[in-house]
Structures are given as structure tokens and as C-alpha cells.
């Protein structure tokens, strides 16, 4: 048996959307009060849109600039290393020129050369 309380009540007299013209007035009222907020959202969206529009080209240009800068820095540091290698590590740590020359060279110093070096000192 189906109880009558299983049947829905007709509450359509309370339905605010049932009276079309009045409901349109309610909607207009809400949209009217929201107008300033919506205008602000549109303006903000335009700014974000502009930034988004310029974002990719600016990012590409920045990436290109970084690439050029990196390349030129790499070139420069390479030339510095080459220059440093001509003076040598021995000189850099304070070993006398004669020793440094012998170290770099393939010839072994003779006894006379060694004597004259230490005698000179």
C-alpha cells in the first residue's frame, strides 16, 4: 500500500521561477548588483590577457638573450684558460723559472746547470 505521504506536496506556489516576469526582475536585480564586480573581472581579465599575449614573445627573447650571453661567457672563459696554460702551473705556485722550464721541457738538466743555478742563488 502506498502511503499518501510518499506522494510529493505541490509546492509550486512557492516556486520563484514560476512567475516568469517577476523572476526576470529578480535576475536583473542580481545582475545589476553584480555589474561592478563583473566589470572589475573583465578589466582584470584584459590585463591578464595582455600579459599572456606578450608572455611568449618576451620569454623567447629572454631565452635567446640568455643563450647568447652563455655562449659568449663560455668563449671568454675558454680563452682565459688557454692564456693561463701558457704561463703554467709551476710559475703560478712560485717555482723558479729555471725549474719551471725544465719541468715543461723534456731535457734533463746537466750537472753544470744545476751547479750554476744553486751557486747563483
Amino acid at each position, binding site marked *: 500500500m502506498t502511503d499518501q505521504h510518499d506522494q510529493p506536496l505541490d509546492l509550486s506556489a512557492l516556486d520563484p521561477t514560476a512567475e516568469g516576469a517577476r523572476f526576470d526582475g*529578480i535576475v536583473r536585480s*542580481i545582475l545589476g548588483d553584480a555589474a561592478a564586480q563583473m566589470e572589475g*573581472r573583465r578589466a582584470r581579465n584584459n590585463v591578464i590577457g595582455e600579459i599572456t599575449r606578450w608572455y611568449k614573445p618576451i620569454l623567447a627573447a629572454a631565452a635567446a638573450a640568455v643563450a647568447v650571453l652563455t655562449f659568449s661567457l663560455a668563449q671568454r672563459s675558454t680563452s682565459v684558460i688557454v692564456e693561463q696554460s701558457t704561463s703554467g702551473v709551476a710559475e703560478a705556485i712560485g717555482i723558479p723559472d729555471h725549474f719551471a722550464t725544465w719541468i715543461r721541457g723534456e731535457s734533463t738538466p746537466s750537472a753544470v746547470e744545476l751547479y750554476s743555478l744553486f751557486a747563483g742563488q
Partner: protein
Amino acid sequence: MEEAAGTDKSDAELVLAARRGDTAALEGLVRRHYRAAFATALSLVGSSMDAEDVCQDAFLRALERLDTCRSPAKFRPWFLKIVRNRAHNYRDYQRVRTGQSLDDVSPACSADPVHDAVRADLRSQLERALRLLTDVQRQVLLLHDLEGQKHQEIADLLGMSTESSRQHLFVARKRMRQELGQDTASVYLHD
């Protein structure tokens, strides 16, 4: 009646468009969810006029916080929570928004004044009977019988089981019919 805006779009699409300032999208959300908002508000504040004020306030509040709606596809439950909060505030403090008053919206006025009078009388009787229900019974009844929500949706919204929702609805209908009287109740029964 004006053509409904954005009726072919999902809630998620309308929310995203409204965030960008699309007024037609906002109108779509208002038209789609107004009745649910009204049912929720009416269940808490007890009168149609107050419920309309709460709804207007809630829509503006929701718009302010639209960017915090994490799941635009679940706009309705998110929005109805705002309605409930605003209705509680309204009821507790009888404090209304400062924008345009809905008193400015013209009262119902169709081509048939007799129909308008009968409808106003029915509304008045229903509101009086609704006030005799508990908050929960009113919310379940209005969400189910006015808005057409399913028990599962109501249960999720109100934080109860679907069985509780069914029981509250049963009791609410019974109480309403007793209050309205058998003669009047027959008017409210669907065929």
C-alpha cells in the same frame, strides 16, 4: 520570460566564463540555481521575501569568492553552502545587504488577478505550515518537493544518510498535510 542564458553549457564552463567577467554566464548560473538557493534559504528564514533577499546576497557573495571554487563542476553544493551560511546570518542578525532591495522588484502581476490572489493565498498557507516544521524537515521537504533534488544529493548537502532524508521527508509531508487540512491538502497533491 527572457531566454535562459547559457543553458547549453555546463556549470564548469559557466563558472570559468563568469570568472572572466562574462555576464551571460553569470545569468546562466543564477537562472539554473536560483530555485535550489531559494528552497535552501526559505527552509532557514521562513518567508519568501526574506529568502529572496538571502538569495541575492548569496549570489553576490558567491561571485566575490568565485575564484575559490576549486571544483567548478561542483558549483551547486559549493554555492548552496554559501546560501545556508548567509541564511543563518540573516536569521541570526536580521542583517541584509546594502545593495538594491528586492522590494524594488515588482510583485507578481499577471494578466489574471484572480490567479495571482489564489497563488498568494496558497503561498501564505504553505509558509505558515512550513514554519511548524523543524529546520531539517523544512530543508529536506523544500529541496525534494520544490527543487526536485534526490535523497542522495540532499543527504550529501545536509550531512545525513539517505534514509534519514527519507524519514524527514515523510514526517514533513505528514505534518504539512495535517496542518493544511485534508481539504486543502488535496489541492497540493499531484495527480
